[in-house]
């Protein structure tokens, strides 16, 4: 459970670096998502401004299509050139980790296990039409299907947390 404790530890880092709360990140993230979707052509589909799963799918499928001549699905927003959210997030987080001295190599879990988690989460996210971020974004946009997906996501988190707690108590 060390990784869980590590990830839920509050932001009281002794290291230097800019301090940002999750609330600020939520507000800025939502503004960027809405502005990108509505003003900067990250659409259609609607409420597509920010999604880690769909945007990663667009980037990967577009690249595979270009390299291998396949016809894997990409969203209309990414037909000409793919959205680059995953690369941006990786670069931004790398910059933050480097400048704050928090970058270090770690191996908390077996990579094969987390690889499989990644495959399953991507497939489930594409089935639901978005990762946790876009399901919330679609809910905020007023889409019933987004609300259904986000409700199911919350239920999934609750069941998994109960299961983790039950396993830790044994």
């Amino acid at each position, binding site marked *: 459970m060390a990784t869980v404790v590590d990830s*839920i530890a509050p932001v009281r880092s002794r290291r230097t*670096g800019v301090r940002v*709360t*999750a*609330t*600020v*990140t*939520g507000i*800025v993230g*939502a*503004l960027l*998502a*809405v*502005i990108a*979707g*509505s003003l*900067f*052509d990250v659409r259609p589909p609607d*409420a597509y401004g920010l999604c880690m*799963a769909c945007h990663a799918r667009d980037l990967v499928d577009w690249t595979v299509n270009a390299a291998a001549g396949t016809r*894997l699905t990409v969203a209309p927003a990414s037909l*000409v050139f793919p*959205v*680059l959210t995953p690369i*941006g*997030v*990786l670069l*931004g*987080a790398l910059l*933050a980790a480097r400048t*704050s001295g928090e970058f270090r190599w770690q*191996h*908390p879990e077996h*990579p094969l296990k987390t690889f499989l*988690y*990644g*495959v*399953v989460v991507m*497939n*489930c996210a*594409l*089935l639901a039409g978005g*990762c*946790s971020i876009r*399901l*919330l974004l679609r809910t905020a*946009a*007023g*889409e019933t299907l987004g609300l*259904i*997906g*986000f*409700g*199911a996501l*919350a*239920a*999934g*988190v609750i069941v*998994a*947390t109960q299961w983790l707690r039950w396993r830790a108590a044994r």
Partner: protein
Amino acid sequence: MTAAVATLVAGVVLGYLGQRSRMCFVGGIRDFMLVRDGYLLRGLAAFGLTAWLAFPLVAAIGGAGVGPFGTPDVVTAALAVLGGFGVGYVSTLANGCPFRQHVLAAQGVVSSAAYLAGFFAGAVVFHLWAAPLLLRLLP
């Protein structure tokens, strides 16, 4: 091309903020249940509320509006429930939402980098095998 540049810039900003704040979109519910810590949950609520307010505001200043959204049919809704539950359940086991996994991978967590490899491979798996199989099975 506009979309590519916009998402790259938004991604860099969010990645930076996400690393500094440890933001996670499934961690809020998990932490609140486990240790009654509302730090990440406030971030989740802030995202939802801000987006809810920003959609009509941006449309009012000339941005493209969203919707109207039709009523979903039963099969699509069932798939959304199945997919949403799977994302929530497995993301909790994997110790973070896809956004958090990107941030962790960028700060040197090798298992999160492996997660991302699976995540990207999963997109090809879905469109090559999972989606055609579903289309064959579903009414």
